[in-house]
């Protein structure tokens, strides 16, 4: 595909399959796919699916952290092979802040190793810290912050690099419901202001329904998309849309697919 095509997808995955080879006492595990995914530039795509369906594997393959058994991933027209491409930022589910660095040093981590000019680093770190509401904690260590704030540090550390594709792997999984809704607002703001393409892995249907333009519903293992649900939310939106009647319809549709798949994942036959 030539780079001149104006409507070239930002992210394009084709035939992604992940099979873990057999080990002692265990046969081969077909974890994922084959699965196709195309994201236009600036899209907000969420992935929901039962536990163990390969959501995180999918994210790691898209990020270039894991090589798929089969299939290809292209980011901005270039193949992703065994390395996270420039312009891709990843936020993980677990607390990934560096406990030995202050908030400001955590956020500056990526910029420092790119050899960015110190004044520029300070400017961008200041902005990212302010954007994530961490201004009063710039000199604090992660141990002094709450779980939600530490996750904001990790988002700021990614945001500061101005990624064009942001991959979020259940970043709010460990947070309470209220904090999650508010963090959702911040992700929406981040998405609007940076114009980045966002892919969010989540197990929370409401989170997916509230944040994304489109939600991909995955089947139980091996994970494949069984439905793509468009939300048709306006670009300017926030967590208050949970009160919209359409919101209930979307989560209901997501759950109608997921109920059976989740039962399958639990080893129960759908009733």
């Amino acid at each position, binding site marked *: 595909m030539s780079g001149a095509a104006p409507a070239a997808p930002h992210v394009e995955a084709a035939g992604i399959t992940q099979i873990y080879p057999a080990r002692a006492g265990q046969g081969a595990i077909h974890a994922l796919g084959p699965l196709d995914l195309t994201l236009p530039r600036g899209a907000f795509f969420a992935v929901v699916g039962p536990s163990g369906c390969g959501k995180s594997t999918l994210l790691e393959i898209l*990020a270039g952290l894991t090589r798929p058994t089969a299939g290809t991933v292209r980011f901005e027209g270039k193949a992703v092979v065994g390395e996270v491409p420039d312009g891709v930022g990843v936020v993980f589910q677990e607390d990934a802040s560096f406990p030995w660095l202050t908030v400001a040093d955590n956020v500056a981590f990526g910029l420092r190793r790119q050899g960015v000019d110190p004044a520029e680093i300070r400017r961008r770190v200041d902005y990212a810290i302010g954007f994530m509401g961490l201004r009063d904690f710039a000199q604090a260590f992660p141990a002094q912050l709450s779980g939600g704030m530490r996750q904001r540090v990790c988002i700021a550390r990614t945001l500061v690099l101005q990624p064009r594709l942001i991959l979020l792997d259940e970043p709010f999984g460990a947070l309470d419901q209220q904090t999650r809704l508010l963090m959702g607002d911040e992700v929406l703001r981040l998405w609007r202001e940076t114009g980045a393409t966002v892919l969010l892995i989540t197990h929370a249907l409401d989170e997916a329904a509230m944040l994304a333009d489109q939600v991909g519903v995955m089947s139980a293992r091996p994970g494949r998309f069984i439905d793509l649900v468009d939300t048709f939310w306006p670009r300017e939106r926030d967590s208050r849309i949970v009160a919209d009647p359409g919101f209930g319809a979307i989560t209901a549709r997501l759950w109608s697919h997921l109920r059976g798949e989740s039962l399958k994942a639990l080893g129960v036959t759908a009733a």
Partner: protein
Amino acid sequence: MSRAGWLRLLVVSGAVLLLDLACRTGIITPLTMIPPSAMAAALLALIGAGRFTADIVKTLGNVTLACALAVVVGFSFGVLIHAMRRVRRALEPLLASYYAVPFFVFYPLLIVLFGLNDLPIVAIGFLFAVVAMVISTMNGLDRIPPVLLKVGRAHRLGPLRSALLIKLPAAAPYLFTGVKLAVAYAFIGVIAAEFILSGGGIGYAIAYAYNNFDNRTMYALMLLILAVVMAVNLVLHGWEQRLYRRRGGR
């Protein structure tokens, strides 16, 4: 200081006072033990006279050398063994049972190997300390949260940068424990070795004083060793506390 800290201080000073009293009232005869206050006075006099300066320097030099070697070699081997899973599986039981070997019995062999000089002493201090450092290093590397390594890859760090910028600081508290153990073990190894195979050093001086019924010197030197080890540990402990406070207790 915390309440528990004050209480601890009270218990220790009370015990010392009691011992002093027992010695001075003759419950404990001077042939067995001299009063702690007399030990301290003897130690001050002894340091002032400079009679054992050479021995002190020799011992501290040997401990430093044994400890430094143990930390460097132990760390390197820890990293190496950690990287080779099969080798590790083979070696792990050996490392775990290492301290069951009373390797002082090898001192004749060490003398044959290194000669009658300080090397066998340093070797025993080193052998005593090195495995603690190996184990702590592997332990530290084991406990690096995998997600931090993924962050490194997401930032496109190469193996060397990942090691320096993520693995080393992430494992630092465990490495620190290794260093602390190495210091303690190096002291034990060197001083014990000086007792049996040396013509100098504090360990030798204590043994010499003991053999000559010179209780004042013997106890003064014992107190010296305690004071030095305690001072070193206090410094390391303070440093460690600062490290932990930052990280919220590891």
